[in-house]
């Protein structure tokens, strides 16, 4: 998932009891990270004698993998994902990759993080783990004294006191105290570690912009392609359809004109033919117009158009639309075609008896949900209907998510950015 598509959503939190063990694991990994740090730092000056190049080809991906694991893991202590900021080489090839990688600040930030993590990250995570382990240790201290031979656990706090089974109960409050401190700060220490990691592993403002530019360039190229293809299709439809029919029509009319005095019956037959071909031309133009911009969408906006669409389908479609106004025309059109395509998919594949469409506007985004009670198993694959919608929405920075277990039901969730200020308040549409 690219950056623009990731709506800020909280990654799953780790359960509280798992945290001390994860903290311990992170502390150990932090020290292992030193190895990656050293290998990378050593490899760089060795580029001068060429040995560094193969070393970097191996060690940088290792360090990146290591950092990526931490990005995934640590994002679960934060409310947002930690994005991967790496630049892609403009053309494939090993040396190009190396050049891009060495010029990529993310590479050096990774290495800096390895060092910071080994010192500060290690301290924070270890502290978090030790607080919990210490509390457990002191809470069961009397038990330990009881089960172990004399002299093993009789001198708590580094030999400050000597206790026996009875007096060892006095250290339990220390266990409680440690437990309270862990409850209060255990998770915060880990979050602090995650914040430090995010500041170094997450993309810088520059990298964010670069990512955004890359995405926009991709979606623009796709939009231009799609539009060109659309225009070609329209041109072809007009050429093979209406234009050809009008030509035939005018030919028939010309022949009828010439024949009208000589052979009125034949002329009448030609006129009938002409009328039929005019009718067909009109109906083809109608279909074409519907595909470009359905008239009912212009008339009634998204609500009316989706309702009209729902009426034309052979299964029941519940339509719930709650919008404070009309979105700008391009957004409205994209939303309409997304719904139309999604419903067409339901018709083609799902064998559904009921479908539902829900459109709402929240947090400056248009939320569109299309669901059905059909057979499920829908996926986004290149060339498929859902893929088409995804590409169409991408031009508006919109996203598409599909939940469709085999056996159904299927839910397609689409989101389109749409500022509240751009919503046009129209006098209540609809007349009935």
């Amino acid at each position: 998932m690219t950056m623009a598509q990731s709506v800020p959503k909280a990654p799953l939190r780790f359960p509280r009891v798992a945290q001390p063990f994860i903290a311990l694991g992170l502390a150990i990994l932090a020290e292992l990270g030193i190895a990656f740090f050293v290998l990378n730092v050593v490899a760089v000056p060795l580029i001068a004698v060429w040995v560094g190049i193969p070393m970097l080809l191996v060690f940088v991906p290792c360090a990146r993998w290591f950092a990526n694991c931490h990005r995934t893991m640590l994002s679960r202590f934060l409310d947002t994902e930690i994005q991967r900021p790496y630049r892609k080489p403009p053309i494939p090839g090993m040396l190009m990759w190396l050049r891009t990688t060495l010029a990529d600040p993310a590479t050096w930030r990774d290495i800096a993080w390895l060092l910071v993590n080994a010192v500060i990250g290690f301290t924070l995570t270890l502290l978090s783990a030790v607080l919990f382990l210490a509390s457990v240790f002191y809470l069961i201290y009397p038990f330990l004294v009881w089960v172990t031979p004399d002299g093993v656990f009789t001198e708590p706090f580094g030999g400050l006191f000597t206790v026996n089974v009875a007096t060892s109960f006095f250290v339990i409050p220390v266990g409680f105290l440690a437990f309270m401190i862990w409850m209060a700060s255990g998770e915060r220490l880990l979050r602090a570690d995650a914040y430090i990691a995010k500041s170094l592993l997450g993309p810088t403002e520059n990298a964010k912009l670069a990512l955004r530019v890359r995405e926009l360039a991709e979606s623009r190229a796709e939009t231009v392609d799609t539009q060109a293809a659309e225009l070609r299709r329209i041109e072809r439809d007009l050429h093979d359809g209406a234009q050809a029919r009008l030509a035939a029509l005018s030919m028939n009319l010309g022949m009828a004109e010439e024949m009208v005095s000589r052979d009125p019956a034949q002329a009448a037959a030609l006129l009938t033919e002409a009328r039929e071909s005019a009718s067909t031309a009109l109906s083809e133009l109608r279909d074409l117009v519907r595909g470009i911009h359905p008239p009912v969408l212009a008339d009634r906006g998204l609500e009316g158009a989706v309702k009209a669409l729902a009426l034309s389908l052979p299964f029941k479609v519940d339509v719930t639309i709650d919008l404070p106004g009309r979105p700008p025309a391009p957004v409205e059109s994209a939303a309409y075609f997304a719904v139309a395509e999604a419903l067409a998919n339901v018709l083609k594949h799902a064998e559904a008896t009921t479908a539902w469409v829900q459109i709402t506007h929240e947090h400056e985004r248009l939320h569109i949900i299309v669901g059905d009670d059909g057979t499920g198993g829908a996926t986004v694959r290149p060339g498929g209907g859902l893929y088409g919608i995804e590409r169409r929405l991408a031009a508006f920075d919109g996203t598409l998510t599909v939940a469709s277990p085999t056996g159904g039901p299927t839910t397609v969730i689409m989101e389109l950015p749409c500022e509240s200020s751009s919503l046009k308040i129209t006098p209540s549409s609809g007349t009935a």
Partner: protein
Amino acid sequence: MRVVIAEDHALLRDGLIRLLEAHDFEVVEAVDNGPRLVPALVEHRPDVAVVDVRLPPTFTDEGLKAAIEARRQVPGLPILVLSQYVEQLYARELLTGGGGAVGYLLKDRVSNVADFLDSVRRVAGGGTAMDPDVIGQLLARNTRDVPIGRLTPRESEVLGLMAEGRSNAAIAAALFVTEKAVSKHTNNIFAKLDLPPSEDDNRRVMAVLTYLSSR
């Protein structure tokens, strides 16, 4: 018969006027925009109005809204709505007021002059004239409906023509059968769809349209 026409394209407006006047209609007013339409209808109270859906100034569904508004002010005012495309939603809105004397046809239907004039006269006489496309869409939607599935192909055909608003005589003529055969089919249809039988053409159409669009 007195007619009011609303059509913004000069060519089509003149064509309609010419066509109607050639067949003993008197065009009392021809308007070319939405705001003028309601007053014209209320003022002239024509025997029938022929109205284009899309009119200035908004070029959306101005004509339809005006038609519904005029029928609110003058209940039962016969209006035939013409459009470049048909939309179930609009058909439903026109029919919602009830009472018949409405029509909703594709503009291309005008080219079949005899049929078109028949529709205009039917609407003027308080009947309905629904475009075959509207009915086709309605029937297509109901393919999974069990009672409709029980109809024979001939009965489905009769149901379609009936829903367009045609009388038994017209259906008989269209299908090249006797009127008696048609009335046998219609009785069967009403029995299978569990609708109250009715001899009144108009009420019959309403029953069928309500049945089809409620699914």
